[in-house]
């Protein structure tokens, strides 16, 4: 995930006016998220009262579904757009606060395993997507963007790489549309496959964090399985996000060597600029809890604040997924992306199963 994405630009007026402009959209996110929570509770209570055997549909799924229905059946007024675009802010806020629910030792142990798997995943994903791009004769820079997006962290990685490799807007839009469409599909396929394989929470969380490209979708897919799986998915995905600078730097050097992008003079500054700073916040929050800065009740409050932030994110995931817009972007990048994602999902599943046998996750 790129650290270089700034808050949505909501106009050129005063800061107060800009802040007010995001209010309607944020209220919409909160309303949809809260409706998801109410539907989960009332649906379960109704099924229990009537002695129905009904699968527990979590608030995560309700919030995404309500958002999907709204964005695909009606035109959302512009008034709401600025606020809806804040969903990524809520995601990062939720991740930093989620650090309070991790013991630092667990972060180091699971993070260490994640890091090893992430390096393998990134190497395989980059090679695979590059191969598929060449087979399907996609433009080289579009192939690079798809490879970076599927190897590291989806849309944010593509945006971070676009400037670094001097890619076209059109190529970036293609790559983003493909990654978003596949992210939406993975929300439903990953939990279903994991349930059929009876995966445990840690294994599934690792798989979701390694196999799903966008952080928001990986977080949602993890939470759809269980609370514990959601935590592990965020940790694995955050580890993957931390690698963004190295991958984008490698591509920038490659394209600069071919005379098709600007040379990178200060590599350390480049890496720091691309490094997702919220990862440091996550680690710092976990350390503060480890040093007993917060009481048990305060840690519970921070964990709940994290859940509220994620609630707004999940509503945003549904609202920003518009299948009609995605279908306009063309089929070939989508096919390459889909083939790559299916293979990457299989590879990462194999990695996680292997890690489970070795370390007993």
């Amino acid at each position, binding site marked *: 995930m790129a650290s270089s*994405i700034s808050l949505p630009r909501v106009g050129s007026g005063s800061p107060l006016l800009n802040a007010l402009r995001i209010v309607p959209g944020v209220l919409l996110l909160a309303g949809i998220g809260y409706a998801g929570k109410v539907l989960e509770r009332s649906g379960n209570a109704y099924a229990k009262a009537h002695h129905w055997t009904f699968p527990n549909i979590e608030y995560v799924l309700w919030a995404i579904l309500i958002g999907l229905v709204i964005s695909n059946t009606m035109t959302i007024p512009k008034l709401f757009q600025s606020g809806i675009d804040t969903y990524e802010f809520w995601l990062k806020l939720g991740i930093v606060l989620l650090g309070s629910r991790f013991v630092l030792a667990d972060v180091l142990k699971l993070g260490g395993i994640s890091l090893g798997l992430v390096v393998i995943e990134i190497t395989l994903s980059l090679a695979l997507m590059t191969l598929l791009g060449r087979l399907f004769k996609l433009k080289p820079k579009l192939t690079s963007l798809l490879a970076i997006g599927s190897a590291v962290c989806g849309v944010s990685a593509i*945006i*971070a790489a676009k400037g670094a490799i001097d890619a076209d807007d059109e190529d970036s839009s293609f790559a983003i549309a493909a990654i978003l469409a596949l992210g939406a599909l993975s929300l439903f396929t990953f939990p279903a496959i994991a349930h059929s394989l009876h995966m445990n929470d840690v294994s599934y969380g690792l798989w979701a964090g390694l196999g799903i490209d966008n952080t928001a979708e990986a977080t949602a897919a993890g939470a759809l399985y269980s609370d514990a799986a959601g935590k592990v998915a965020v940790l694995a995905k955050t580890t993957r996000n931390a690698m963004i600078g190295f991958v984008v730097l490698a591509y920038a050097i490659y394209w600069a060597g071919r005379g098709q992008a600007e040379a990178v003079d200060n590599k350390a500054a480049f890496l720091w600029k691309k490094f997702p700073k919220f990862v440091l916040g996550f680690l710092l929050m976990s350390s503060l809890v480890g040093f007993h800065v*917060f009481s048990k009740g305060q840690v519970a409050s*921070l964990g709940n604040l994290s859940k509220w932030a994620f609630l707004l994110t999940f509503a945003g995931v549904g609202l920003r997924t518009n299948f009609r817009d995605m279908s306009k972007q063309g089929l070939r990048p989508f096919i390459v992306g889909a083939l790559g994602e299916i293979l990457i999902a299989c590879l990462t599943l194999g990695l996680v199963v292997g890690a489970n046998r070795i370390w007993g996750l």
Partner: protein
Amino acid sequence: MSTDTSDSSRKGTSFSLDTWALIVAFLLALAVRFGVLKNIPW
């Protein structure tokens, strides 16, 4: 779906999204630590 591909690091806002998330998260943590926010429900 947002397919805005502009590199917004060059835009006019003074803080990046990450920095805002860090600031707000640690302000919330301070508020919880010093009892301004208590017993947040879920």
